[in-house]
């Protein structure tokens, strides 16, 4: 049996005008939370659709839990939440859920029991009201998101694929999603999600793969990726005033390779050969009052900028989810 939850080998997907995914290989170990990161249009959704056999790669092979996706029933063990979400509006919630479960080969009775469990767990069934008996379009947007989420997990999948799961979630549902992802991981399931919000990924993922323009930029455990990029970053926060003098120091290319204004603080990457002490002296000499000066690991966002460069950054992208 393969050790990988998902094993992608040399996959290529071309469209008429461009190559969406190019010689892409990826091995996702079992039982981890895996982030597929990249800006909009990087090829994340295409990759996910190929994993789910919705699209067929032009070349290369994809297997899940050691079985090829095509011609086996392995996809019944996968749960999928697409980026754009919706349900049959006029259908009763319970019936939608049973339908989704049966499509994955769960029999009706088992599905019913699990639906009860989930509805209660996500507070869609309370003493006052059983939303399971309502029609989908009677539910609020937040409730519909919960229903969709239940639909993804109802067949107790071993691999869960979430495409941009945090987009459009209210904070309460985002928290519920985060809790559920971690719970799945503790139960030995594999969760893969795509996002262009590096912050979320950094907090939840064990491992990540960054893709841009259809190609893999890097992959590995988050800790390894960060270690590889060395501790060459400084977080610097000012205690009011003296911003101009600091800006002059930051503009010195022999000292600072790049900086990112995070509003509350600057994340600064030191120039090759430069030293953090040097930076501190210069800033203090300039008369700045500091509230924070800390050596930090680079954020995934910084690493991404470092590796992909500005050309990989598109308007839709942000470092702060």
């Amino acid at each position, binding site marked *: 049996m393969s050790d990988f939850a998902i094993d992608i080998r040399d996959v290529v997907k071309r469209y008429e005008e461009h190559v969406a995914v190019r010689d892409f290989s990826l091995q996702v170990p079992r039982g981890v939370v895996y982030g597929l990161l990249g800006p909009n249009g990087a090829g994340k959704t295409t990759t996910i659709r190929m994993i789910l056999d919705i699209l067929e790669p032009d070349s290369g092979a994809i297997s899940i839990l050691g079985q090829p996706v095509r011609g086996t029933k392995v996809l019944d063990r996968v749960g999928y939440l697409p980026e754009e979400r919706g349900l049959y509006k006029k259908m009763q919630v319970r*019936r939608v859920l049973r339908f989704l479960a049966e499509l994955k080969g769960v029999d009706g009775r088992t599905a019913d029991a699990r639906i009860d469990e989930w509805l209660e767990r996500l507070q869609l069934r309370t003493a006052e009201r059983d939303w399971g008996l309502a029609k989908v379009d009677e539910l609020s947007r937040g409730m519909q998101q919960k229903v969709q989420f239940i639909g993804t997990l109802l067949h107790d999948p071993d691999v869960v694929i979430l495409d941009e799961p945090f987009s459009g979630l209210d904070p309460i549902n985002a928290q519920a999603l985060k809790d559920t992802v971690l719970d799945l991981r503790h139960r030995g399931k594999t969760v893969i999600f795509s996002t262009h919000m590096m912050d979320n990924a950094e907090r939840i993922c064990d491992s990540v793969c960054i893709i841009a323009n259809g190609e893999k930029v890097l992959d590995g455990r988050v800790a390894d990726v960060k270690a590889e990029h060395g501790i060459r970053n400084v977080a610097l926060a000012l205690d009011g005033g003296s911003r101009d003098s600091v800006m002059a120091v930051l503009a010195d290319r022999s000292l600072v390779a790049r900086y990112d204004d995070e509003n509350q603080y600057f994340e600064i990457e030191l120039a090759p050969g430069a030293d953090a002490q040097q930076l501190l002296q210069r800033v203090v000499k300039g008369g700045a009052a500091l509230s924070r000066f800390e050596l930090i690991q680079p954020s995934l966002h910084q690493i991404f900028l470092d590796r992909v460069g500005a050309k990989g950054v598109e308007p839709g992208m942000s470092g702060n989810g």
Partner: protein
Amino acid sequence: MGKTFVIFRREYLERVRSRWFIVVTILGPVFMGAITILPTVIAARTHTSSSLANVIVLDATGTDLGARVAKSLAATTPGATAPRVKVLTAEQLSASEDSATNAVIAHQAQGYLVLDASTIAGTGATYAGRNATSLTDITTITAMVRQNLLDMRLEKEGIDPGRVATLTSVRLDMKTDKITDKGREAGGGMASIVFGYVIAFLLYFMIALYGQNMLRGVMEEKTTRVAEVVISSIKPNQLLAGKILGVGSVALTQVFVWIAGGLAIYEFRGAILARFGIPAAAAMSVTLPSVSPAVGVALLLFFIMGFMFYSSLFAAVGAMVSSQEDVQQAQMPVTLLLIASIIFMPAVLANPASTIAKVLSWLPFSAPIIMPMRMSLIAVSWPELTAVLAGLLLACLAAIWVSARIYRVGLLMYGKRPTFRELAKWIRMA
């Protein structure tokens, strides 16, 4: 449990459970009963209430023709205002017409009839009135004038008036029987035309209705992105198959309920018409043309394949569009094919043996509607019927093949509606 069946069951149950389906299914037979029974009732009622007798007869013939016609007109509605006869000379005619016109305007009469020398010559008469556009009224009045003129002429030739009545009274009912290859069928003629028309229209209606239903369903799945979740569990072809089977079964369910309801109404037509005061004998004269089991199967096949042909095309259209605004234009080519059959229906009805009727009953897109119509009007040989069904089957498979490819690609494409060139590309790349 097969996944296609899961799709089928959802498509079927969600539709059959809907209020819309229940209402239409129940109202269908009521409506059909109404359109078969109402005309009989209305015909029976209107006959007595018609005020044919309430007319002014201007008689400038110098004979008693005016009085004779007035007597006949009075007989049509006993108890109503009797016709008033004015005997006058040809010179007085125009002045009298003016005053008669005023009488009609003042609602004192329904109209006036002018009899003059040309009437006696057998060439003309004039009627002016509020009911001048009523074909049946004018036909009746014309027949009465003609009959009385004939009576008068015969009496002039010295034939006894009593004999004239018996000699000229010819009440002729043309009984029409249809002759097919199997021989003579009683009650064929008119009933066949009605039956053929009803069948063709019902087929058109059901195919259009459920084709549209299919289109909306596919579009909903696409725009809400449910389709994406579903096709991560099941192949698009299975999804399409499940949908066509599901929606088709809903349509069949409805048709069977309607047929059962229609037969029940037919069975109890005597009792129903009796409630409206129509004698049972008249009700019993309504007969259904006999449908042999073989013809029944052929009709069913035409419906099923016609539905599959059009619903798969409508499904492809549903997968092509991303917004309500695009639907109208995108479905135009498919709708035109369907409407073409309806446009030619009267032509086929008028002459089911014509070349155009034959060609339309062979072409796959119109065969499901025109062939059943032709079949109920004239005999179609079994080899011809089999060939048309086989052709339709091939066309059906081709439509499903093309649609499945458009469907597969279209479900994941959002935004602009594809051009025909892009569609061709989709079909190739799928």
